[in-house]
């Protein structure tokens, strides 16, 4: 249970960072922390105490296997997360070239 709570705290740490940080890069890092906490949560769901990797061994029928599906899902989600992070970084670099700063308080053209 403690692992799940830690994972939720990690999510909140990321959320806190997204809300309070003023540096664009730090916001992106906080977003990645949230992402990682979600992935951790997914892997924890599939984990079974004492389980081994799910490569079925017919000679030992009582062996306990962990759930392989969340692992497959997390792999997919990590790839997606890579794409979003790369996209975000590309936009941040472009923003830096336009404004010459990473401070989000300086970037406020759109209002209303």
């Amino acid at each position, binding site marked *: 249970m403690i692992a799940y709570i830690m994972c939720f705290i990690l*999510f909140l740490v990321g*959320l806190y960072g*997204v809300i309070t940080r003023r540096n*664009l890069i730090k*916001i992106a890092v906080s*977003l990645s922390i*949230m*992402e990682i906490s*979600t992935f951790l*949560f*997914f892997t924890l*769901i599939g984990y079974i105490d004492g389980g081994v990797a799910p490569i079925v061994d017919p000679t030992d029928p009582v062996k306990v296997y962990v759930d392989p*599906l*969340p692992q497959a*899902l997390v792999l*997919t*989600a990590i790839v*997606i997360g890579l*794409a*979003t992070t790369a*996209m*975000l970084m590309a*936009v*941040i670099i*472009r*923003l830096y070239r*336009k*404004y010459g700063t990473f401070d989000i308080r300086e*970037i*406020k*053209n*759109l209002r*209303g």
Partner: protein
Amino acid sequence: MNPLIPLFVIIPLAGAFLIMIIGRFIEEFNKYFTSLVLLLLTCISFYFLFTTGEKIFVYKVGGWEPINSLPIGIYMVMDGFSVIVVCIINLIGFLSAFYSISYIKRYTAGNYFYALFCLLIGGMNGVVLSGDLFNIFVFLEISVISSYALVAFGVESNELEASFKYQILGGLASFLILFGIGFIYWKTKTLNIADIKASFSSGYNKTTYLFIQILILSGFGLKAAIIPFHAWLPDAHSSAPSPISAMLSGVFIKAVGIYVIIRLFFNMFAISEGMAVLITALGTVSMVIGVFLAIGQWDIKRLLAYHSISQMGYVVMSVGIGMILVSRGTKPEIASLAIAGGLFHLVNHAAFKGLLFLNAGAIEYTIGTRNLKEMGGLAKSMPVTSATSFIASMSISGVPPFNGFFSKLIIIIAAVMAKFYLLAALAVIVSIITLASFLKFQRYAFFNRSNNSKNHNIREVPFPMVFSMVVLSIICVLLSLLVIPEIRDAILTPAINILTDPVKYSTSILVQ
């Protein structure tokens, strides 16, 4: 097994790939190929619209049959509700792509534009057709990432800022959705929507269930820009190139936001009255606040973007009223009427909001500004744009012969019959304010005297743009035919039946 269903995802994805490869060698390949691909998809989707009816088509990817009647493969599902949304996506997508043929000359890198456009369409089709939660997430991310890139396509400071804001809030929404999916998998050990429904119906923990519902609602609510989550929408939709604004506002927020909320809350969760009241309240708040935020805007695309929030509020409110009645189990015919009003307005909004954004793009294309104060007198020099935008403005504000009137009328009648008099009154008031706001748009853009001397030698936009606008305005008028009972029975009623019947969706998928 219907082999045509996966084509909606395969063709756009393959199209994006081919555009990047062949587009390098052949100059004009990208624009005509995209339009051709989307025309083909539109034809297939209309074929499905006329053949689906009450049937539910299931395609099992890779041919994985269920074991012990438990689904183990990926399912793609086409039913009465998803077919309507697929038709909207591909039709508006085709018209926007055709419109882009002239419009996109303002930008460089046409190949990237059309490849991202195809990915956007493929992702949205996947979200709508997917039968399990994790694929909804994957396709959602495909379409959302391409929309991030398309919003920033101008790479000026405004576009980049809007895209950054959109990416932060969109990323937050994605993680909330992923968390929700994780919780659902934890509790049910399955990801298939029909199977989750069956698994939940055999008992669940109330607190966890509520937590999952809140996670899913806030995640997809962020994507649909319902009011407390709306901050990104006016920036993103006004900064994108105009055909993309038409796609985002006309289709995107419906396909990845409203559609998934309606689908999951009707067909996956058991509807509880508290959640139904919450959804109705969110819809009403977006309807009212959206229009008040819109009325002070002088940038046409920002004005239209705020009206999108308000009009989506109508849809959510109306579906929410239906949800309340279904959860109480009383007056099923009024519940169907309310849901019919919501779905009808969803279709109508795609047509007229797409058209309005194309008009805004045409104005920007000719005079190079989006500020209403700098326009004027365009009615003489741009007759087609003026006429089509007049039709769209009258549709969105609910003036009788056009489609918006009938859907708003159905929504208001349903609210009155369900004894939600306050909501009916608010719907009427919001409609009047919408009319005022669009009269302002018409007057300043088209009928005022021009105070700008360079506006004298402007001409109508090129043929592809005119064609798309004229077709959409014809659709705007034709859609009012949906109010005739026979046509409504053929198109809207199967969608309503699948939503209001609590077990039809899950049982008919699980037996196939």
